[in-house]
């Protein structure tokens, strides 16, 4: 069993009059072995929700639970939360070899002698050549870097993986490779995944359940097919309508200026 649950989570930035409520009393469950896709406009609080889950920002109130227990991260305890970040060019330390970056995330009880083998296995798992381990990340493509970032997250043996926009900095053809890989790994390890993206098409492709976020709140959630076929919330409908379709032309006359 591995599930992630946000209970009434609120995250704010700043104080007094300037307070921004980035995440507003969000409750969301990522059930066992399920991919939940979180889609929403930029600034809607998707990343903040993810960063709160792994402890990079503090929640103002509410709970984050893994299997009903307060969430943990880190390599000291298996079965916590791990995250893969958006920008593959900034998520790997340029001064650290690929192998060292991955090894750093291995649970602390993995013996020194076993570490090299563990790293090689992880590289294999994400479809990379284990011989890459001693190399520095410079010169690797975005897709390769993202695979390494995924390997690093998997190294900590998390119960739930959070993927925040992991394909948006990649080329279309490489995007497909990374998405295919994430799906393979998720199925192979029977992991639960919170998949965050602004791209509705990739979210729908990968997720069993889709949650739509707008201005810090989850405005709609449901099985992917249902969200696509029968959206209830106006924002979800707008998202679906705006999704790029091949062959359609952009009409400047329609530029609706919001307030």
């Amino acid at each position: 069993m591995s599930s992630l649950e946000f209970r009434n989570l609120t995250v704010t930035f700043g104080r007094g009059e300037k307070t921004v409520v980035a995440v507003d009393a969000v409750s969301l469950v990522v059930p066992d072995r399920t991919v939940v896709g979180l889609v929403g406009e930029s600034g809607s609080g998707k990343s903040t929700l993810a960063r709160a889950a792994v402890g990079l920002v503090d929640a103002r109130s509410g709970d984050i639970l893994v299997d009903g227990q307060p969430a943990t991260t880190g390599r000291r305890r298996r079965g916590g939360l791990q995250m893969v970040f958006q920008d593959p060019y900034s998520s790997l330390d340029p001064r650290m070899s690929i192998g060292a970056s991955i090894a750093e995330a291995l649970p602390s009880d993995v013996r020194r002698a076993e570490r090299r083998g563990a790293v090689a296995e992880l590289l294999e798992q994400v479809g990379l050549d284990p011989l890459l381990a001693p190399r520095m990340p410079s010169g690797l493509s975005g897709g390769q870097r993202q695979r390494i970032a995924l390997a690093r997250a998997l190294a900590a043996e998390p119960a739930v993986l959070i993927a925040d926009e992991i394909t948006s900095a990649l080329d279309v053809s490489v995007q497909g490779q990374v998405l295919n890989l994430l799906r393979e790994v998720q199925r192979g390890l029977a992991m639960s995944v919170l998949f965050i993206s602004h791209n509705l098409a990739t979210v729908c492709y990968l997720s069993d359940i889709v949650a739509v976020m707008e201005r810090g709140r989850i405005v709609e959630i449901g099985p992917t097919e249902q969200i696509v076929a029968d959206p209830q919330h106006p924002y979800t409908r707008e998202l679906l309508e705006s999704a790029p379709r091949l062959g359609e032309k952009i009409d400047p006359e329609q530029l609706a200026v919001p307030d």
Partner: protein
Amino acid sequence: MSTTDIAEKMVDRAAARAGTGRGGLLRRLATSPLGMAALLVDLLLLLLVVFGPMIWGAAAEEFDVDNMNSPPTDGHLFGTDSLGRDILLRVLVATRLSIGLALGATAIGAVIGLLLGAIPAVAGPRVGRAVVAVVNVAVAFPGLLLALFFASIFGASPSGAMLALGVAFAPGFARLTQTLTAGVVGRDYVSAARVIGVGRLRIIGRHLLPNVADTLVVNISLSAGGALLAFAGLSFLGLGVQAPSYDWGRMLFDGLDGIYVNPAAALAPGLAIVLAGLALNLTGEVGAQLVGRRVGSARLPAKPATGAATSVADGPDGSPGADDLVLDLRGLTVSFPRGRGEKSVPVRGVDLRIARGEAVGILGESGSGKSLTAMSVARLVPDPARVDVQSLTFEGRDLSANTSRELRRMLGTTMSVVFQDLMSSFNPVMKVGRQLAEVATEHQGIGRRAALDRAIGRLRSVSISRAEQRALQYPHELSGGMRQRAMIAMGLMGSPTLLIADEPTTALDATVQRRVLQLIAGVRAAEQSALLLISHDVAVVAAMCDRILVMYAGRVVEDIPVDDLLAGPRHPYSRALLAAVPTIQTDRSQSLRTIEGRPPQPADYPIGCAFAERCAFASEKCQQDPVLEPIDNGSVACWHPQQGPVPGVVIDSPAVVSRQRATTATAGPVMPSHEPSRTRERGR
């Protein structure tokens, strides 16, 4: 946004991407003549430090009672001191103590400074704030004053003075470290390390310091020169080295007593201080220059063309003549030196013609040369790239020869660029609205008020809510996504005849992407601008453009009207790109179609078709270079052009669909069964 600003940011980013390995600084030091000289003097000093006292230590202590306070003689090149000891030997021997103490003081300062400086980056906010406050107060004191203060506390001894100087230097280092690490700490790899559970000290040691080391080392060696002078000062004041030990400062002090009898006794140690100080400073300076060069400013514009300029003739049949062209670029090559006379050529012979008001899209994977092509047009390619063209005409003017300031002004008003990636920094201390407005006031002479109004309008149309208030905020007060949109708005402030947009909507969500595209289309309609739109997303390019160039490995492989592209392009790579875009209709039970493998790197472009390795239709013939040949309404560079609709791709345009039906009826299916999913199976 002016093209100059962008160029600078671009170079910063290129530098950040390039990253240098360990030891790179030393190697680069050795390659500059000034650096060479500094290294030589450093080496000399090092030899003196190590061997000086061993060789001359005893001789420097010998009393020559016949020659006390003697002026320079043959036996004593700089004379002797009050006990008849040879000044020159003593100066040489004193190198060890002088340099050693200076380096010791620097090291103490550096260590304390590094620790203090790195704490705010990893400690909780409260501790961090306290440390920053303390450092700020300490930095405000003059260093020498601090040193004197501590020296009198720690007592008049070499170690006391070393400690005092070290402590006095610490705040400066702390401030520098704070600034540098603050830049690194926001990077995702530090966040990732935290999520993994890496401890604070380890984060400092393994992730923060190594990434700021170059700059720190340079500053430390600069300070070592300062420490040397400061230490000499302390010894001179009697607060440092005490007899019978001696360093240069102490000798200077002693020498001054007999200045009228033997001026050389003061001159020699003085000279030593100045020379050694200079050498240390020079090492630091040269290092700083080299580090600085990596992140320094771009030189604009890129090298003008050297190729034979051809006359601007009318295009081939059917294409517009020179007068109707906004841009006519022929034979563009961009290359980067790779050392040892080699070079890599990421753009190899691209022709690009854009008619007045036409919208042209460039499609291709990253590394295919799309952005370099666009940057070459805007003359924004950073050093050390070399741009060669056969001809480059913009608005009827020959840009290939012209490099004047007048040209830059002309480009500033007639060409707008929206380079999402490159503009990733606003001026942090200027309000967003003013920065946008400045574009219009500077380049178009619009009044301040009107410019601000336009800025607010543009902000609103990129979906920034409460635009009036946002305009009055500073860049860091907006979310990342908002900042990005504000930058797009800034790129759209002008009224250009050619608008160049490089991935303007990547990473924007669908609703905002749509609005940004509508805004671009709107600016284009209002100003009658031509558009050069670059994207790796077929849907975006197809929605905005009349004609599309598909680039692969530095060449245009297909040039095709949009509707033909949608109906089914001819080049296998174009077809694969079309198939790779997931849409909401994509079948969830299937793996996504991908193009297996990677595009070749510019350094090892193969002979023949560069796509051959990934192409399902490759044959023997493909080992020869295919050239761009006219076909239908466009042209294609492929030995085995395909036709008909691409299977599995849903086109949302009745006109295109009916055309597809017509062609399939005559041509039949042409995709081989192995072309789709080529995903490898992986275990576990």
